[in-house]
């Protein structure tokens, strides 16, 4: 039986050789191939799909809820909001799900040990990070864009009862809808960078939620003379300027300047994550 086994294994390994790999001038790591691999990783985990659906539900559902309240008896627009921004309020809740997903896509590799497999087959390492960011950014942007349009249309339909609604062709409306998708994309990439930098799910999620969700409202407790100098640069406040509201920020940045500030914050964290990935032991 022993020799029979030997013969069988031998033949099959040899068959593998004939197939090509060793002859494999074709074998080579390219950025495009790593992108394909990261796409396979992304789509083959059930949790990613569930988290995306959760994000979409939060975005559309809460947008509709806030629109309904605004159009209700005790309604009216909150200070610093508009019909467009009200219908897109869900963005700030969807970012929690998007952020958690961004963190998990990297920290999950560290917690399961997958990272060792991933980096062994791509020992230059950085192509894996770029591919992860790119796949995640494209998926989030496209799904968020669909959810943002749905939120806008549903929200405006609810506001139309009180004739508070605007059309997509109105000034700033289309930018705000696309801006909501961009906001979620950059927020997600920031979270992903935090996951890569901290390599720990709990630490990265906590940091993300603190920076994007908890700290900005807390700054309202500080005197305006102090906060007016910096709150507009907090990444969530800066990015939110794309959504056609000022949200009570005293010195609001213009939409695209705000978005650029948010991108800069993400870029710094991505740079740090890349530095740690490249230099540190895996």
């Amino acid at each position, binding site marked *: 039986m022993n020799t029979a086994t030997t013969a069988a294994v031998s033949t099959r*390994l040899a068959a593998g050789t004939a197939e090509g790999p*060793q002859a494999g001038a074709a074998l080579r790591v390219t950025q495009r191939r790593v992108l394909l691999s*990261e796409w396979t990783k992304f789509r083959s*985990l059930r949790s990613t799909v569930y988290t995306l659906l959760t994000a979409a539900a939060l975005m559309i559902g809460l947008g509709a809820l806030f629109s309904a309240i605004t159009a209700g008896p005790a309604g009216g627009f909150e200070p610093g909001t508009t019909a467009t921004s009200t219908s897109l309020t869900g963005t700030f809740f969807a970012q929690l799900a998007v952020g958690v997903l961004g963190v998990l896509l990297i920290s999950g590799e560290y917690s399961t*040990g997958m990272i060792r497999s991933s*980096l062994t087959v791509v020992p230059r390492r950085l192509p894996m990070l770029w591919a992860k960011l790119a796949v995640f950014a494209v998926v989030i942007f496209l799904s968020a864009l669909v959810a943002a349009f749905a939120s806008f249309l549903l929200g405006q339909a609810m506001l139309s009862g009180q004739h508070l609604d605007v059309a997509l062709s109105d000034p700033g409306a289309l930018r705000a809808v696309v801006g909501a998708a961009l906001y979620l994309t950059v927020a997600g990439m920031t979270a992903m960078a935090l996951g890569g930098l901290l390599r720990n799910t709990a630490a990265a999620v906590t940091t993300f939620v603190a920076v994007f969700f908890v700290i900005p409202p807390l700054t309202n407790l500080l005197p305006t003379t102090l906060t007016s100098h910096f709150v507009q640069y907090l990444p969530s406040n800066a990015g939110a300027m794309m959504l056609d509201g000022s949200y009570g920020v005293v010195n609001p940045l213009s939409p695209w300047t705000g978005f650029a500030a948010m991108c800069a914050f993400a870029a710094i964290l991505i740079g740090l994550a890349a530095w740690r990935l490249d230099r540190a032991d895996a």
Partner: protein
Amino acid sequence: MIEVENLSKHYGDKLAVDTVDFTVQPGIVTGFLGPNGAGKSTTMRMIAGLDKPSSGRILVNGRDYRSAPAPMAELGVLLEARSVHTGRSARNHLLALAQTNGIGRRRVAEVIDIVGLAEVAGRRVGGFSLGMGQRLGVAAALLGNPATVVLDEPVNGLDPEGVLWMRTMLKSLAADGHTVFVSSHLMSEMAQTASRLIVIGRGRLIADTTVDEFVANASSSAVTVRTSEPAQLRDLLLGPDSTVSSANPGTLLIHGRTAEEIGTVAWRAHLPIFELTVQHASLEEAFMKMTHDSVEYRSTDNADSVAVAA
């Protein structure tokens, strides 16, 4: 081929690997032996480019692995059993790894067959037994049909049939001209699989030798004799270089004399002998002796590394 030159690795104050030099040649299975905590896994992680050496360097097939254009054709690695995301199916796990180097689905199906996971390839890895996890790790290592294969404790968690399968596979890889480097803390396993041995203890290279030489050098030969006159024979054999002990009445265990010498002495004294057996020291014993010595040379600490090996 793997060339390790002056390799050291610190983790903070702790020196995990201490100026180690060795070469692993293609065409044979080379065992990497040492007690737990000796630095085997650290060395293997450095070979795979996961940990950076504090000093020294490693060449895989003549170059720095981290700059290899086609890494999966150069090196296949099985590190810990679970270097796998538990939420993914075995097939998707392998596919994701394969795609980075441009390896197709056909080869993925092929390695799944080779390691015998075809029936469970669609199941999530989280539900896999330790043995199935090891097989999956081997499948990943074989994907690119790499010139060099590095496996850390591959028989861990395998059932007897799996152990046999693993040995057969390692030998056939070596026979095909691959470089095969396999770690184990089980000396008996290495004796059946490897032909060369790299032995380390406490991060230092202890031996770079063949399995046969290793046993011969490290063991003191012992001979068992069964006789009706144990007391007389013992008196004749005792000397400055030899020791005689007795475990059972009528049986002597002699160190320091060859079977030829013992037989001749007994014949001259007209003592009857019923059995004369040379005891070959097992690899296990040779290893214990060798690592024990290495601990004694560095006797500032307690001898825990040997205790762990047992």
